[in-house]
């Protein structure tokens, strides 16, 4: 009975969320009397030495046709291993990849699946898993009981503690899987930030108050100065100034950064549901009565087009 984490590489290391999951798995595992297992697939097995101390066991799944990420073949490889081990809990990051692999795992293992998880604890013989419901208007805490469960965890939910497991057992398992059924024919890379919006520690978001497409560069300047990512509101996407991929809100992405700076956004519920778990929120709006200020820790009544560059400047100078 162990807590398994499916690892995801980012460049030549694992993603920050991977380390968050491994850290929380160790913490909760210790309380539950369970060990932790990290699973790495395909070409990412080459990074497995980074996981020393992070889990009790690291399992590397390899096959000739398991190279870079491919949902179908990777899911098959993982499910084969899960079937043999019957993990009590399998953790995935809420990322493109997590959302491809987690459903396959849950369906194959006939496990319950909980998504957008924001907390994981152990109490009295079961895992307690919390996630938003009703579009984020409330949070529900579930008890997993005795059954196996798949959890897809939101980035920035857990702190990363140093991995201090004395001896990590690394195993390589040769698997035999069919090639995936979906072929990527072309990828048109997205220009801009390397950090996915949902994982960024700092997000700078602009709305209608940015007035014109060219002013969005003010968001980029500030995001760059803070090492963060740029988001936009639905109004900006609807106006055709930015694509939907950076949209924060109900029909876009949910972000949970340490710092969320939002300018020229009125604060309709459609938007606030996408960001209200951010740790510190700074709102800028010309209207002192804008709803967004109810969701902010700090507020500045002013023109986004003046205040944003002023903050960027203050960061460089102070």
């Amino acid at each position, binding site marked *: 009975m162990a807590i398994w984490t499916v690892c995801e590489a980012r460049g030549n290391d694992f993603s920050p969320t991977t380390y968050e999951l491994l850290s929380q798995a160790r913490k909760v595992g210790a309380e539950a009397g369970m060990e932790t297992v990290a699973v790495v697939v395909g070409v990412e097995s080459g990074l497995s030495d980074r996981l020393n101390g992070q889990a009790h066991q690291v399992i590397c799944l390899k096959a000739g046709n398991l190279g870079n990420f491919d949902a179908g073949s990777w899911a098959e490889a993982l499910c084969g291993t899960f079937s043999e081990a019957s993990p009590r809990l399998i953790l995935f990051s809420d990322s493109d990849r997590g959302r491809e692999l987690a459903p396959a795992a849950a369906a194959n293992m006939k496990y319950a699946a909980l998504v957008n998880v924001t907390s994981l604890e152990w109490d009295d013989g079961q895992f307690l898993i919390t996630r938003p*419901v009703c579009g*984020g208007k409330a949070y*529900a805490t579930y008890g997993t*009981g005795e059954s196996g469960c798949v959890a897809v965890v939101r980035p920035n939910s857990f702190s990363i503690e140093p991995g201090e497991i004395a001896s990590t057992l690394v195993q390589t398992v040769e698997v035999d899987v069919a090639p995936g059924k979906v072929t990527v*024919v072309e990828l048109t890379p997205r220009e801009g930030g390397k950090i996915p919006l949902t994982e960024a520690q700092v997000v700078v978001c602009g709305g209608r108050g940015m007035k014109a497409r060219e002013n969005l560069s003010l968001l980029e300047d500030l995001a760059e100065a803070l090492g963060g990512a740029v988001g936009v509101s639905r109004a900006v996407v609807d106006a055709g100034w930015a694509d939907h*991929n950076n949209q924060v809100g109900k029909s876009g992405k949910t972000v949970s950064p340490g710092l969320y700076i939002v300018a020229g956004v009125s604060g309709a519920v459609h938007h606030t549901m996408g960001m209200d778990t951010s740790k510190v929120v700074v709102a800028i709006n010309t209207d002192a009565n804008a709803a967004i200020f109810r*969701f902010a*820790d700090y507020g500045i009544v002013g023109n986004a087009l003046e205040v944003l560059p002023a903050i960027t*400047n203050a*960061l460089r100078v102070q």
Partner: protein
Amino acid sequence: MKIAVLVKEVPDLEAHVEIAAGGTSLILEKKRVLNYFDEIAVEAALQARQSIGSAEIYAVSAGNGTGMEALRRALAMGADRVIHINDPDLEGAGPLVVSQALAGVVKREGFDIVFAGKKSTDDEAGMVGPMVAALLGIACVQGVTALQIDGAAVTVKRETERGTETVQASLPVVLTAEKGFYTPRVPQVMGIMKAMKAEVPKVSLAEVGVEAVASPQVRGYSRPKVRLPVKMIEGVASQAASELVRLLRDEVKVI
């Protein structure tokens, strides 16, 4: 060609939600609609039929007493027929049981393309589409923004963390619809009347061979974190900015 559409009935986005005393249940205002992303999926089915020339389109929904609003909307938009999986054991059921139920019906009815919404606006898990695919043993492409059907294969576009991907898959396949794929049509009078009069077959979980297993139980509900009232920072842009940076750096220590 058989096109299935998986639809969910959800509370209207504006519906009021309250946590009942004791934090053990939710009080939901009773306004229910077809899930926004599923509405796009229905439109995608209608557009697919148009591009192929002809196809049978059926929509399926699963719930305990819920689903008829969603199904009638699908009919009104132009689906040929609908099936309602109605069972008390679907109350509070997680994606596994729902997916097994939907997959059971779709398998029974036959399918070439299965459309679903990328996620529901109430639960936002986005699991059912890909889980149904896994249960049917077919591929799933999530978050589709464009579709071209060429005989027994499809070419689709979707947005990913890395950029816009163009992918190909053979039929049968599950495709989940992303915002922007299509703009759902508004049902016309003829469609609305047809939907109101339609006979909707009901099936139970047992009838589709699904054994209801217990989903994780909710132990309690809580409110989203409440913030302290906002601290307004005074001054002209440069002064306020300077003070903000000082606060974030020295007091809140978030930069």
